[in-house]
């Protein structure tokens, strides 16, 4: 079942994502993009909407938008136009936002089984701070307007209502964010607002193909809040239906502190944007050169990478997904495989995302480049463990020393004679000695308490200095104690 819903109901969710492009300058003028600079330090007559000015689109913003569109498998319109979206608000001194309307740059794409309805270019509004007791709009005595953000290039991505649960919305949003991040066209930082996400949420009887009345959840600033907000809204809608009421189309703001949903605008203020073609801008017609250029710069994206790692390299699902969304880890893995061609990708991925990641956490999660472990060194460690030249325990100890002191694992294995005991007669002799020295546990095991074997395994490992393979020790011990 879906979180927040009884079994006979189904969630229908679509997302609208705004991505700020990380160009040097704004969409229609040469003012620099900035975050956190003093207010109104990056403005000009164009983004302040002084009379008589003319916008000119930023070529790089268009390239970035085409890259996003291609990464989402969209069709690029051969000829798209800009529209004026009219609304009256102080964050927008022209009283219209330049956006796209009936012919968006891109349409009909798909990412991980969620269809993309459209992706289009537009400009961001100015930032407003409402002064007053709570910082909220109501009760404030005035508002401060900062035009640094006004005119920042945005790509708005709209999905079809193909998402069926709050957690799926979060996961898909995260995949989209990583996809855009790896394109290198946006900082995709939700807290700073360079990626913003709204959700359209409705419910319907399971199995129905009709769409229920939707509500819009605005501007959730993390995917965790998005999931919580959608869950709360699904519960609210299911409650309304259960008590015989109807869902009313409205826009809601989710307060993550209280978990409450507040209506943002009344229905009477239904959007009436009076779109009209922007007469100051000529059509956008991406030519084959622009498209080819964008295609060439596309990296292997998370969805494709996860599939390749799983299907071609045999890496299990979980590490494959993790590696696909962490470009620096994936690059590290690929360098490991180049350094040690016989190293199985599955083994390399397990060391990288398992023991090595745990060591990094122990160190407070530094960047990969901040610990003295090269991909080749981790690869030779994993290779030695894979070939059973060293025991797993020895490998883990070595890894700790690699992370702490940058030792060369191959050299240390030779110098300190840490190679795994491969001579089973030597191991058998040690087992015999340990059994003699520990008659108590040995007797318990013989009497049927198999758990008591742990103490004996430990004693053997200690005797060998950790050089023995745990499985092998177990096997020989059980044999010696008559458990076969």
């Amino acid at each position: 079942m879906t979180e927040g819903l009884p079994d006979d109901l189904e969630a229908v969710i679509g997302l609208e994502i705004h991505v700020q492009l990380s160009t040097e300058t704004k969409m229609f003028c040469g003012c620099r993009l900035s975050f956190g600079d003093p207010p109104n330090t990056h403005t000009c007559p164009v983004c302040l909407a002084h009379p008589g000015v003319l916008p000119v689109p930023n070529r790089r913003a268009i390239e970035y938008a085409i890259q996003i569109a291609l990464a989402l498998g969209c069709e690029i319109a051969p000829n798209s136009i800009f529209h004026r979206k009219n609304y009256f608000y102080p964050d927008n001194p022209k009283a219209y936002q330049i956006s796209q309307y009936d012919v968006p740059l891109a349409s009909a794409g798909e990412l991980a089984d969620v269809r993309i309805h459209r992706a289009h270019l537009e400009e961001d509004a100015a930032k407003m701070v409402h002064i007053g007791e709570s910082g909220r709009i109501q009760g404030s005595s005035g508002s401060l307007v900062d035009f640094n953000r006004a005119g920042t290039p945005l790509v708005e991505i709209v999905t079809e209502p193909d998402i069926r649960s709050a957690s799926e919305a979060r996961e898909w949003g995260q995949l989209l964010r990583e996809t855009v991040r790896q394109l290198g066209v946006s900082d995709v930082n939700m807290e700073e607002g360079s990626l913003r996400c709204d959700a359209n949420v409705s419910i319907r009887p399971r199995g129905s193909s009709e769409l229920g009345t939707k509500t819009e959840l605005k501007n959730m600033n993390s995917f965790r809040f998005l999931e919580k907000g959608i869950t709360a809204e699904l519960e609210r809608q299911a409650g309304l239906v259960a008590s015989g009421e109807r869902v009313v189309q409205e826009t809601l703001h989710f307060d993550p502190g209280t978990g409450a949903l507040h209506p943002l605008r009344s229905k009477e203020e239904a959007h009436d944007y009076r779109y009209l073609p922007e007469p100051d801008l000529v059509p956008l017609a991406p030519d084959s050169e622009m498209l080819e250029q964008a295609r060439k710069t596309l990296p292997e994206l998370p969805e494709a990478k996860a599939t390749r790692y799983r299907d071609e390299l045999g890496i299990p699902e979980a590490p494959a997904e993790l590696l696909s969304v962490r470009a620096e880890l994936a690059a590290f893995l690929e360098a490991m495989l180049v350094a040690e061609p016989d190293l199985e990708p599955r083994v390399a991925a397990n060391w990288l995302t398992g023991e090595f990641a745990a060591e990094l956490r122990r160190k407070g999660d530094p960047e990969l480049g901040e610990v003295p472990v090269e991909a080749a060194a981790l690869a030779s460690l994993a290779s030695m463990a894979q070939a059973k030249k060293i025991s797993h325990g020895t490998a883990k100890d070595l890894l700790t020393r690699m992370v702490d002191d940058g030792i060369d694992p191959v050299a240390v294995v030779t110098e300190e004679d840490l190679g795994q005991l491969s001579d089973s007669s030597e191991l058998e002799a040690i087992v015999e000695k340990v059994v003699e020295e520990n008659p108590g546990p040995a007797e318990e095991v013989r009497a049927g308490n198999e758990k008591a074997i742990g103490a004996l395994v430990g004693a053997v490992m200690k005797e060998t200095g950790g050089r023995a393979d745990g499985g092998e020790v177990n096997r020989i011990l059980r044999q010696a104690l008559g458990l076969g």
Partner: protein
Amino acid sequence: MIDRDQVVHVARLARLELGEDEVGALADELSSILDHVDRLLAVDTEGVEPTTHVVPLENVLRDDVPGEELTPEQALASAPSTEDGAFLVPSPKTEG
């Protein structure tokens, strides 16, 4: 024909406050303007693509290179009211 309700609606979208007599006068004026434009309907446009631009230009773009910016003082120079380097505006109401 533009009726009074449409005038009131459009005025509200633009946050214009109109008196009763103004609403009536504007309804008449806007109607006569639309009637005038309606004369274009007499032209036969069968088979003619809608035109958004009369000049055959496309992809007029600029490079992503920073240009001249105003100083905050210049930006705010004609603002009726400022505070902390920002434009100060009346608090927007959630209800129109």
